[in-house]
């Protein structure tokens, strides 16, 4: 008979138990009688030997599982009844817990989906990328790192390694597509033909690449991602098999990938053959280290072992081909694909998870406190139950079931909160550091986590009050009035420490939020050194054929565009540039004649036209700016920024100094071995993002080279984004084969690239801290109100003996303040220790910023006073006569 059946046939089960035991007794009696005993005596002896029949029955029942379930159900019923009686308490407790559980669940599902299950790819845990690190370089901000390889390097790695199951080579390029109306630019990628089998995601239409596609003379093919298919071709399945002109060559579309696929980060993919002369293997630079590699480790191979293997291969290559590609001393570092994509954002997420756990703890202490207060009121009830024979374990179970009922209800409500909270989180989460194929949502694992949290919560917030309630002499509770001063006193200490803990936890949360807020404020108010207002950038990809490959042709093309853009109504000024601020131009080592120095000198280089300085609003400090003639005749002159002048010509006159930019010697269509004369010095501006201080930079006429892409920066009198369409039109008017790769206001660029991640952290932790503060407010208020209620008698006596209202007010407020101050002290100390884990998320503000700490403490004192004021006023309003008569 299964326990389930027994659960429903309880009467029968009971009868059978009785029959069995009676049978035993009768057998014994019969045996006694058979041995010559008097029947009456035999019965007496048998019963005596058996012990208590009821006790044995109870023990038998307890040996069975269904009885535990039954007890649990009975406890649950009881708990629900008693919670329903105290509805306000139940609702507050459930609400507080639901906030905690909901926030934790939402945060956990973000982390689960981003960190543990971000990719739909086969064995992505074993997928790695690797990079060469110059050991002489500091290595921060990507300096001295190389994660792109030449084709011979890639082939050597593929042939000689002992650690990879498979390896894919890939490089990205602009793909121009003329659709009749104009030329569009998409991000494309050349991928070795194993690239799609490697990731193991089947196409939704057509096929993936095969080795046949890269054979000599094979027809040119390509694949497309889902988003491009939807946005540009309305998801029309008939385009499969059609031929498109891409970068001037006809290619047949053979496959379309599903929505949840973002391999190699491109919209279009071309198959990459690596044999000499294959499609896509000629590059305009001398050291075409363009191939980015993704590899899958063999089972059981560690990251370190792979790094060692690659290290040996790269050093062999370096020995065979000494020169610019290989630094003097270098090593190979391996990283998992996940680390490569998610990277530092993981630490933001973990910081937020820690924050949300603090919030959960606050919620738990809050509910624990409420339960304690309830337990005090119920002291009498518990004592009655104990005297009626309930064991301590039974009573604890009963109380735990009650908190479980609360937690279960909160779990359901919390999942609802999490569902809506997640929608909010997904809306503000920065897309940059999150893999595009990641889907964030509730799933079974996350819900299981929520359930586990609920059980944990039950134990955290229910166990202490339950143990406390059955502690000591239970009978004592009977003699007490149940609401007497004695009872209140006994529970006072635990309750006070819970409030102190709550305040301390909340201080830690608020300090974290405060620091992030300060840091975000600093970030958004950083002095850029240039004026980003109403500044539009437009990155242009000229036609792919050799139309603009010489300096003269390229200059003519861009000067034409520039003239037209300047004439657009609403444009105040415009310039050609290599980069869009606050991201600077290219980097180069430099040579200055007559200078001896041990370390290599370097500088950033931007290529621009004469309008650059006005467009950005840079100030001239010495000499002159670039002139129209400089640009027209491609003169070898340079304007440098202040840090450049200070670093390299500290004590001398910078004007008239000559500089050679070594990077030009390696590029085609650039003046080799050319020295540029410094003609002016301008003010610094942020050219390495918002956080880094300005780097040394030189500005040269763009007309000196035909190499590289160009950007048009336009200063507008109106909203910059409103000019996008007109600028696009002007570009197509010059050449309909040129495409706009990217066009936005610099403000939008800043918002998207620099602000979203800190903003996400700030909003999330800010919300947690806000909820935490509200919970603490409730916590302090309820404890103070409760204390006042318990002390009504005492206050009445005091007032009868002559205490003034003011005294009483002061007494209650003082008590509240003492609790809060203790919490604040502990919280501040804890914060000092903990906020350094936030250091990575902060910029421009120290992790122990005194102003933030001061503000948080002040806020807390205000909130604490507010929460104690109401109960204090109630205490002061007590009528001594009434208070004493009640007793």
């Amino acid at each position, binding site marked *: 008979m299964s326990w389930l059946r027994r659960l429903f046939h309880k009467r029968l089960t009971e009868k059978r138990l009785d029959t069995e035991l009676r*049978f035993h007794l009768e057998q014994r009696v019969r045996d006694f009688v058979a041995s010559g005993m008097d029947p009456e005596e035999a019965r007496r002896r048998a019963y005596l030997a058996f012990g208590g029949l009821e006790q*044995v029955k109870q023990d*038998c029942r307890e040996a069975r599982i269904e009885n535990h379930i039954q007890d649990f159900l009975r406890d649950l019923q009881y708990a629900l009844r008693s919670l329903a009686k105290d509805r306000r308490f139940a609702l507050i407790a459930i609400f507080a817990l639901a906030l905690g559980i909901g926030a934790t669940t939402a945060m956990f599902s973000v982390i689960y989906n981003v960190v543990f299950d971000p990719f739909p790819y086969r064995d992505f845990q074993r997928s790695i990328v690797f990079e060469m690190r110059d050991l002489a370089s500091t290595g921060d901000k990507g300096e001295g790192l190389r994660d792109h390889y030449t084709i011979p390097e890639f082939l050597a790695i593929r042939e000689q390694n002992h650690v990879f199951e498979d390896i894919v080579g890939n490089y990205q390029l602009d793909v121009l597509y003329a659709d009749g109306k104009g030329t569009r630019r998409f991000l494309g990628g050349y991928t070795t033909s194993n690239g799609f089998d490697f990731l193991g995601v089947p196409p939704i239409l057509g096929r993936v690449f095969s080795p046949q596609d890269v054979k000599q003379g094979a027809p040119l093919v390509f694949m497309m991602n889902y988003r491009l298919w939807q946005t540009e071709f309305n998801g029309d399945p008939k385009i499969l098999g059609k031929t498109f002109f891409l970068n001037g060559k006809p290619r047949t579309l053979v496959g379309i990938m599903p929505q949840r696929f973002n391999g190699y980060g491109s919209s279009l993919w071309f198959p990459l053959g690596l044999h000499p002369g294959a499609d896509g293997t000629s590059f305009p630079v001398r050291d075409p280290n363009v191939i980015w590699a993704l590899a899958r480790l063999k089972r059981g191979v560690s990251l370190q072992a792979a790094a060692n293997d690659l290290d040996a291969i790269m050093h062999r290559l370096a020995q065979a081909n000494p020169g610019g590609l290989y630094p003097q001393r270098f090593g190979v570092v391996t990283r998992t694909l996940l680390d490569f994509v998610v990277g530092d954002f993981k630490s933001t997420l973990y910081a937020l998870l820690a924050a949300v756990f603090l919030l959960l703890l606050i919620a738990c202490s809050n509910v624990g406190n409420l339960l304690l207060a309830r337990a005090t009121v119920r002291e009498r009830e518990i004592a009655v139950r104990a005297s009626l024979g309930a064991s301590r374990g039974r009573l604890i179970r009963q109380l735990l079931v009650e908190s479980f009922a609360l937690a279960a209800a909160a779990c359901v409500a919390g999942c609802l909160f999490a569902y809506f909270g997640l929608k909010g989180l997904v809306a503000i989460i920065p897309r940059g550091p999150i893999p595009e194929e990641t889907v964030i949502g509730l799933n079974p694992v996350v819900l299981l986590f929520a359930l586990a949290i609920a059980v944990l919560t039950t134990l955290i917030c229910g166990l202490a009050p339950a143990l406390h309630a059955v502690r000591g002499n239970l009978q004592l509770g009977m003699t007490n009035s149940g609401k007497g001063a004695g009872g209140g006193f006994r529970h006072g200490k635990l309750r006070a420490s819970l409030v102190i803990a709550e305040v301390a936890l909340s201080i830690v949360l608020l300090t974290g939020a405060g620091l992030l807020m300060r840091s975000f404020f600093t970030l958004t108010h950083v002095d850029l050194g240039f004026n980003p207002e109403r500044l539009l950038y437009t990155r242009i990809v000229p036609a792919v054929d050799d139309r603009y490959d010489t300096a003269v042709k390229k200059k003519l093309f861009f000067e034409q565009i520039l003239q037209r853009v300047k004439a657009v109504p609403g444009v105040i000024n415009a310039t050609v540039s290599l980069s869009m601020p606050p991201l600077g131009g290219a980097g180069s080592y430099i040579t200055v004649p007559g200078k001896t120095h041990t370390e290599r000198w370097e500088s950033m280089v931007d290529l621009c036209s004469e309008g650059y300085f006005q467009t950005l609003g840079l100030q001239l400090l010495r000499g002159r700016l670039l002139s129209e003639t400089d640009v027209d005749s491609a003169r070898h002159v340079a304007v440098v920024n202040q840090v450049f002048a200070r670093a390299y010509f500290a004590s001398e006159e910078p004007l008239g100094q000559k500089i050679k930019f070594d990077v030009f010697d390696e590029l085609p269509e650039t003046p080799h071995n050319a020295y540029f004369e410094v003609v002016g010095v301008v003010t610094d501006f942020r050219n390495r993002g918002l956080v880094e201080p300005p780097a040394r930079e030189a500005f040269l006429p763009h007309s000196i080279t035909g190499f590289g892409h160009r950007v048009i920066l336009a200063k507008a009198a109106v909203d910059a984004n409103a000019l996008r369409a007109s600028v696009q039109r002007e570009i197509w008017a010059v050449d309909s084969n040129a495409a706009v790769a990217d066009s936005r206001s610099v403000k939008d660029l800043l918002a998207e690239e620099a602000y979203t991640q800190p903003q996400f952290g700030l909003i999330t932790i800010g919300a947690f801290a806000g909820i935490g503060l509200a919970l603490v407010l409730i916590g302090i208020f309820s404890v103070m109100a409760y204390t006042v209620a318990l002390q009504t008698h005492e206050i009445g006596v005091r007032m009868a003996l002559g205490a003034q209202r003011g005294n009483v007010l002061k007494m209650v407020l003082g008590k509240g303040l003492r609790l809060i101050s203790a919490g604040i002290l502990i919280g501040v100390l804890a914060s000092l220790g903990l906020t350094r884990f936030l250091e990575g998320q902060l910029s421009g503000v120290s992790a122990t910023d005194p102003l933030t700490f001061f503000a948080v403490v002040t806020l807390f004192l205000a909130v604490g006073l507010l929460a104690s004021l109401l109960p204090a006023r109630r205490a002061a309003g007590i009528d001594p006569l009434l208070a004493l008569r009640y007793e």
Partner: protein
Amino acid sequence: MEQEKTEVLKGTLDMLILKVVAFGPIHGYAISQRMQQISRDFFQVPEGSLYPALYRLEDRGLLQAKWEETETGREAKFYSLTRAGRKRLSAEMVNWERMSEAVALILRTVE
């Protein structure tokens, strides 16, 4: 002496019950009688321990029970071993033998 006997019983009662039941279907009273007989009156299993143990073993699927008539024509609950019970019994017996050997070894050791 009575106290000591019960002490010995506590850890091994389940195993002894399984062993006795292993001979064939048997009811509770007979189990206690049989145990007393075989152990030459050493073990007297109190009913307060026997029945909860039987219920526990049944609950864990080591014993199965059937209501049948006895020779005297009365309804009684007869216990027998399940497959899991048989497995458990042999495992416990091996364990027990090892342990008692070990205990004997230690006790025999001359100081």
